[in-house]
């Protein structure tokens, strides 16, 4: 320090800052100049046309609009909720088992639930087990495939990428059961129909899982590319970037994908019925419960069907309530693309 101090150079300046002041001359404003400035200003900001005032007050219009909206919403609510409550109430009906012209049971009880598990015809446990197994396996494998496809489409640039994405979207437009007959023939050759239908269905669900890439891709797109680049500079490989950076940031979309994969088998009716081809043991819940509603069964098993419907709804409802915030973040996360 002392060395620096002693060797420090001293610079002296002798500047008279006021020297120039005396010599500056400023003439009074040019009247023409200010005049034109002012007219310009008036033209642009003062003399602009004003909006016409409203005929009816803001409050009144708001109230009318709200009333209409609430009436429409209430009607829609009732229409939407009625079948749901109908099924719940009828599942507790004890006085009869067939279709009736009313919703509220005359005699309440858990008879139908007991019957669902004890009646030798219903086979509900098997259907439930089938569906659960499909749901679990599909959700895991489908998530792995779907995230891999989405990540590749989001981060890599390769020939035919745009084409591939468009093609998958277009193919996704076609309803799945168009290929029903072909798939059945194909799978029956491998003995994956009838009793083995759940395995065939798992294959079908998994095979098309990459097609659902767009939500996860939309989510990955929102994760800044500079994170990837920073990780690349830091020495991470593609694999490390995916597992250490992208995946931990994508919890909502991972959960969303798992949820979607898990739910698909519960609601699948067309494929499941067709693949099982009247083999009771190969049904999922949707196909099985529908079987209870066939002409020969409906009079004895309608209320049992209702009980089954309620039981199926319970696990999914619980799952949904628990994971709701991730589900919303997953769906909307892809929507706000930066």
């Amino acid at each position: 320090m002392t060395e620096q101090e002693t060797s420090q150079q001293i610079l002296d300046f002798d500047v008279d800052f006021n020297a120039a002041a005396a010599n500056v001359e400023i003439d009074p404003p040019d009247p023409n100049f200010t005049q034109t400035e002012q007219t310009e200003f008036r033209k642009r900001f003062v003399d602009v046309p004003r909006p016409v005032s409203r005929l009816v007050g803001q409050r009144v219009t708001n109230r009318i609009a709200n009333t209409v909206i609430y009436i429409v919403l209430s009607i829609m609510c009732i229409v939407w909720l009625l079948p749901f409550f109908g099924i719940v109430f009828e599942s507790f009906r004890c006085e009869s088992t067939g279709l009736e012209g009313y919703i509220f049971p005359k005699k309440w009880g858990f008879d139908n639930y007991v019957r669902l598990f004890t009646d030798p015809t219903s086979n509900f446990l098997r259907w439930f087990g089938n569906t659960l197994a499909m749901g679990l396996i599909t959700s895991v494998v489908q998530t792995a495939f779907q995230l891999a496809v989405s990540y590749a489409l989001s981060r890599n640039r390769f020939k035919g990428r745009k084409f591939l994405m468009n093609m998958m979207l277009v193919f996704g437009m076609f309803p799945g059961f168009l290929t029903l007959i072909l798939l059945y023939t194909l799978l029956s050759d491998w003995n994956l129909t009838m009793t083995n239908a759940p395995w065939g269905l798992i294959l079908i669900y998994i095979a098309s899982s990459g097609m659902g890439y767009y939500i996860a891709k939309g989510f990955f797109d929102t994760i800044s590319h500079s994170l990837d680049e920073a990780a690349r500079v830091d020495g991470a490989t593609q694999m490390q970037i995916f597992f250490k950076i992208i995946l931990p940031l994508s919890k909502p979309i991972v959960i969303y994908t798992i949820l979607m994969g898990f739910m698909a088998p519960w609601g699948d009716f067309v494929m499941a019925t067709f693949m099982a081809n009247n083999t009771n043991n190969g049904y999922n819940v949707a196909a099985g419960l529908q079987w209870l509603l066939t002409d020969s069964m409906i009079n004895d098993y309608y209320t049992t069907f209702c009980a089954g419907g309620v039981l199926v709804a319970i696990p999914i409802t619980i799952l949904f309530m628990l994971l709701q915030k991730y589900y919303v973040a997953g769906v909307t996360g892809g929507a706000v693309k930066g």
Partner: protein
Amino acid sequence: MATVKLTNVKKVYGKNVVAVQNFNLEIADKEFIVFVGPSGCGKSTTLRMIAGLEDITDGTVEINGKVVNDLQPKDRNIAMVFQNYALYPHLTVFENMAFALRLLRVPQEMTNESTGKTTYVYSKLSQDEIYKRVTEAAEILGISDLLLRRPRELSGGQRQRVAIGRAMVRDSQVFLMDEPLSNLDAKLRNQMRAEIILLRKKIDTTFIYVTHDQTEAMTLGDRIVIMKDGFIQQVGTPTEVFDMPANLFVAEFIGAPKMNTVPATLVRNGDGYSVEVFGVTLPVEGDKGDQLLQKGVESQSITLGVRPEHMTLTNRNNPYAIPCTLQVNEMMGSELHLHVLAADGTPLIVRVPTVQLTAQQVSSLVAGVRIYVTFQSKVMHFFGSESQLNLLAEQSKEANAASEPQQEQTDEAAKGTASQQWYHN
């Protein structure tokens, strides 16, 4: 710790969108180089090519004399600070800084005693070593007490520090910074700018810094590389580019407010020169006159450049007074920025320190008043009205090449910026 050399580097996006070309630059060890230019000029692309984040279409990039064109970023021994910090949101500050160290594999030479063969064994850094390096960097940056927080719990300035810290722990040969301050507010930016200057003394490595802000470029750089439309316009120290801009673009880009440029006529009378501008004939004397004579410049129409701070207010009796009408008076505190119109309607900016004026003079400077300005020959810059090149500057080959195809390149460069976003689509 390392030299960087770029030879004829060229970047083409897609088929024919040229982002950078003819890029030749040698960066010395421990030099602080700043790439500066308007958006879309190719400065970031060049930096990303050095980092290995963009392919190099043509030419070579050498680090420490070794061509790195085909090396992955991680193998180039570089560190980079990104504009948006790019901190890993799910990791704590400590883990953010330790990320690279955890991935690092250090080669160790092992000799097999029986055969005498040497092989390399790659081993991880020990936990202690990682801890030591991270805490040391945190100490230097003053973020020791933030190590357990996550990025979203930090302010902009703190995030910036973490981003720098993450780059620091790696002991890299080259430190790349891509507009690191542009996300900060003006006050913090000034503060961080000063801190980067201090930091540079502590780290003491080769820096390449990209910015669009000429103030940052001037204050930070040992040398400044000014780019436009993919071409280098000028390479020089801050003083060089300020005092002797190679062409009109550099002249207007460097310095704020920007240099006044007006069409004028340079007249040669034997060994003397004068400039005719706004109907006033100003003699060119002193150094500038000598330099013109030395270069043998003939009479011609030119673009005359004078910086706002080099203009002075004067009175009507001054034979070189240029009468102007004041349009806007921007009071900056220590100085006034007077936006004036010359007699022929050319807008000029004059920067006047308030200490030079009396309070009464300051208050009388309202829109519409007539004032007289003048400037001396030593602050004049002469640019060819066609070539836009500085008549006095030593023209390097690149600068000449750059000025020629400029017009054709403008469209392509504009497309180039669009195509840079293509990747983020």
